[in-house]
């Protein structure tokens, strides 16, 4: 294997400087193996250009993309939170639900309404509403962020757009609220009344 044979690709693609180009040319003139290899790679390269070029020649993506944009503005294509983050969101909601159920078991089911004073009951129901809202932030951040983006677009003008960062913020807020409301719920139900 000569050092020049490693540069045959660059030679074919015209990526060599004049001096190196000459060196490779001189080498090929005296080396039938490299000359054969060069021919092989050249014809292979031509074939590939034809094959791939023919395949993708009529790919008219740009026009379709531009056509796709206005529609996107109306309906706001949503990229769903994918993969691991989505699973984590469901896991978080699941853990919260488990805590809620567990707290009922600990406190005894009958206590819930009979043993609580009215303000504690009201706090409990309000807290449930917060939990549900937080869960929806956590599990459907893209929908909430889209509504928010529409609101701001309406207020400031321009087109609504949702970035991945905004979705993450929505999800983070949901997570914090879900955590706090879960803690609050457990305190309410097991602490037999408001903790303060």
């Amino acid at each position: 294997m000569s050092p020049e044979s490693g540069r045959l690709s660059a030679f074919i693609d015209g990526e060599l400087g004049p001096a190196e180009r000459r060196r490779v040319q001189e080498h090929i003139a005296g080396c039938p193996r490299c000359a054969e290899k060069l021919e092989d790679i050249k014809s292979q390269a031509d074939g590939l250009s034809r094959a791939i070029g023919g395949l993708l020649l009529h790919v008219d993506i740009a026009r379709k993309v531009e056509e796709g944009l206005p529609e996107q503005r109306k309906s706001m294509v949503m990229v769903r939170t994918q993969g691991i983050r989505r699973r984590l969101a469901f896991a978080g909601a699941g853990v919260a639900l488990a805590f809620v159920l567990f707290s009922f078991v600990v406190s005894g089911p009958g206590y819930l309404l009979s043993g609580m004073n009215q303000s504690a009951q009201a706090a409990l129901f309000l807290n449930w509403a917060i939990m549900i809202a937080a869960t929806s932030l956590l599990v459907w951040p893209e929908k909430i962020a889209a509504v928010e983006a529409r609101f701001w677009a309406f207020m400031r003008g321009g087109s609504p757009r949702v970035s991945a960062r905004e979705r993450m913020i929505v999800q983070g807020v949901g997570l914090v609220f879900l955590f706090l409301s879960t803690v609050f719920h457990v305190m309410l139900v097991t602490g037999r009344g408001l903790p303060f």
Partner: protein
Amino acid sequence: MSQGARDAELVRRSLNGDRAAFGELAEHYARQVAAVTYAMVQDREKARDLAQESFLQAYEALRSLREAARFGAWLVGIARRRCIYHIRRERRRARALAARAEVPREEPLGPAGRMARSDDEGRLLEALGTLGRRYREVLVLRHFEGKSYAEIAELLEISVATVEKRLTRARNKLREILKDGSD
């Protein structure tokens, strides 16, 4: 104006709601993205759909682009991830199908079945499919788009030397495969 500066300007205009500016970006990068998605999935139709989706996703996520001058490399990153998701989904679906119906399992992206062409070009594409993804990428960008090594390097965020190394290896491998096939 350099491509980077032009991209940055177009990105800025797109962010201000100028859809034609994004159309210009799409015009410039459509074939390059198609080359990358084709290298990933090796199916013309799917490559086209994935490239298109990548642009729409890029449009939506444009605000999260930090360096507007490197729009190309960022876009290629999006396209690659989209393809990876797509490939995974296809694999899962194929597995689920195989498990349920006891259908003989097929490699979803196996080049053999899809490229049942008997001519030389078909053989070339088939051989291309047996190369690793990184090798396919440089080959397709080089031969479909006629990109220079420097341009490929910038788009894929690798060095020019790496581009040359991958191309050399890819071509040597292709040559071996085609030789073995014709013996």
